């Protein structure tokens, strides 16, 4: 029987069928961070339970750790230090791996899990963080969970999970130059809505997906959850295997050969049946930006802010008018006439080395508009070191960007640093009300668009400048 990638991954980890789609699933890797991991570990301790396989559990400081140069335990987020210290203590007591603030492997959990080879193709991995689906780009079964589920996974190396349905999104044709993975995923979410993926594991396929770098694939899978999906995934290919070979924890020698043979089988067979297949014509994708407070509220940068009346669905129409109200935008406004106050290049969506290169390439010999506050926050210490070795940090600084230490930073507002009240062009994944600070107006876009917009001071696609 031809099988989908999801079926192959699921059956690799299924310990027991609990009936009614529920299964007991083995979890190969657990990742924690200081915001939610600390609570899971502490509550486990309080119940007198042990972490069952501490050597397969990893933890990093990313969410509320300061990203300003020279940082330490002091976080600008209220009580941030308490979270950091509690995480450090619990991690030590539990005997799990900790990538502490000064560890060279520190960074955003989904970035470091991939670049260190902690999560490999075919593995199951969870983290109490919704963007864990990023790791599906490796051909892994990776998904975000809550803290209570994290406790369960820590104590038992398993989770009770409902078997998702299989969806495949076929990106057909080629993308135009200047169109990035971020534009592809924003286009997909806008085309089918932010709930289209509910209950599904979404496999991204097609020549335009194969053509993406691993960094681009991470971007695509990162936002699967923004269409409501259980997770996103891409079948491993030679590019995936080459990427994995370069990681510290990849298998070596004969074991590597065996593993690679196994990984090459992890794809949907010809004739495999999906519960749903969607198609996106890449020729229709252009540099995109969101105008609302949900990732599906997006338009091409050449276009205009839509009118709420343009939506047939009354709920969408209502959502649009509330969003425009919050965003302070009028229908019919050309998107490239919207003036921005800030530019943020960061997050697990878009701050790997290729993202930095794309932005730096544009920023070389350019300056940001004088009224714009711009920040570049690498996704991990390793990304930062690589960028510095290439001199990218100088390009960012010369252009007027701040160059930060690795972490989530202003992707979200934890009560410390804030884009409160500002209009921000941002390479992140969520434009919800207040996400980047009280009253902050977030426009999601690709790193290239963030760079171009920072320079002109208005939302801009790269070629328009």
């Amino acid at each position, binding site marked *: 029987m031809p099988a989908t990638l999801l079926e192959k991954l699921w059956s690799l980890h299924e310990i027991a069928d609990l009936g009614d789609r529920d299964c007991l699933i083995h979890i190969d890797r657990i990742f924690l961070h200081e915001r939610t991991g600390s609570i899971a570990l502490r509550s486990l301790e309080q119940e007198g339970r042990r972490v069952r396989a501490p050597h397969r559990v990893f933890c990093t400081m990313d969410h509320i750790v300061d990203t300003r140069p020279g940082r330490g335990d002091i976080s600008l987020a209220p009580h941030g230090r308490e979270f950091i210290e509690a995480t450090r203590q619990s991690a030590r007591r539990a005997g799990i791996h900790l990538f502490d603030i000064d560890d060279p492997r520190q960074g955003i959990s989904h970035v470091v899990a991939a670049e260190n080879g902690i999560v490999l193709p075919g593995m199951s991995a969870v983290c109490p963080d919704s963007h864990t689906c990023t790791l599906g780009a490796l051909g892994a079964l990776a998904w975000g969970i*809550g803290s*209570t589920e994290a406790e*369960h996974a820590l104590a038992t190396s398993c989770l009770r999970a409902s078997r998702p349905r299989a969806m495949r999104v076929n990106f057909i044709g080629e993308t135009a130059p200047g169109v990035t993975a971020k534009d592809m995923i924003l286009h997909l979410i806008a085309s089918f809505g932010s*709930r289209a993926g509910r209950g599904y594991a979404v496999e991204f396929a097609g020549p335009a997906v194969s053509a993406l770098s691993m960094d681009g694939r991470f971007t695509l899978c990162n936002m699967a959850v923004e269409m409501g999906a259980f997770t996103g995934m891409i079948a491993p290919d030679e590019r995936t295997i080459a990427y994995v070979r370069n990681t510290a924890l990849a298998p070596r020698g004969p*074991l590597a050969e065996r593993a690679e043979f196994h990984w090459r089988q992890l794809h949907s067979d010809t004739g495999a049946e999906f519960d749903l297949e969607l198609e996106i014509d890449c020729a229709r994708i252009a540099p995109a930006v969101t105008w609302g407070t949900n990732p599906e509220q997006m338009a091409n940068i050449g276009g205009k802010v839509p009118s709420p009346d343009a939506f047939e669905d009354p709920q969408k129409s209502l959502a649009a008018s509330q969003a425009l109200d919050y965003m302070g935008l009028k229908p019919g406004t050309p998107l490239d006439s919207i003036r921005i106050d800030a530019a943020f290049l960061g997050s697990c969506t878009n701050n790997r080395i290729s993202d930095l290169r794309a932005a730096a390439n544009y920023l070389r010999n350019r300056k940001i508009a004088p009224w714009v506050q711009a920040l570049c926050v690498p996704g991990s210490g390793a990304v930062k070191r690589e960028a510095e070795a290439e001199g990218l940090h100088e390009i960012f600084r010369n252009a007027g960007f701040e160059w930060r230490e690795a972490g989530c930073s202003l992707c979200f507002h934890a009560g410390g640093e804030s884009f409160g009240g500002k209009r921000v062009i941002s390479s992140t994944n969520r434009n*919800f009300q207040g996400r980047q600070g009280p009253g902050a107006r977030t426009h999601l876009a690709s790193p290239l668009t963030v760079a171009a917009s920072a320079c002109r001071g208005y939302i801009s696609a790269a070629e328009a400048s």
Partner: protein
Amino acid sequence: MTHPQAQVFHRGVAAPLLRPNIDTDAIIPSREISRVSKKGLGESMFAGWRYLSTRVSTQGREPDPNFILNREAYQGTSILLAGDNFGCGSSREHAVWALKDFGIRAILAPSFGGIFFNNCALNGILAIELEEAEIQRLADWVQVDPRANLLQIDLAAQQILWREGEKTGFAIEPARRSLLLEGLDSIAATLRQEDAIAAFEAADRQRRPWVWM
């Protein structure tokens, strides 16, 4: 009116909060999460909407009189009637802990964010998926006199009892239902399967040795 013979999961004041896509950042803004703990978060529920200022001070905060849960008629709300995609966004379980601490026992919405939906059952909150039109009907009735027009949820019969004995059925997976009715300790339940887990791990060690560090 009451339905004395029903096995009640909960009976209480329901408040309509019908906008779509209420995300977990709205349910509890991240800046409100100040303790490494699941407790005491009720104060922070919907903080961005509930209070006039975002400042957290020891003197307490001034409630925004326009926010529905601050209105006299909705005091004691324990059921939310919500819009589509309620609880989307960040996986933070604090959203559920805040709702629970505030006293919310059930949420009715056309659809929910996936992780949020799981988190609800694990914390004893009943999340029910109902057609938008049904929720609107309930909301219209509740709004007339919120503190008299209570909703009664019978989880065993999978029914919501309201106006003059009117019943609205709902679906719920059996596993989720028993979790809510019996409050099972799922970690303990899984640990009872230790033999199966160990056997799986031994076999997988042969099959995929590179996974086993």
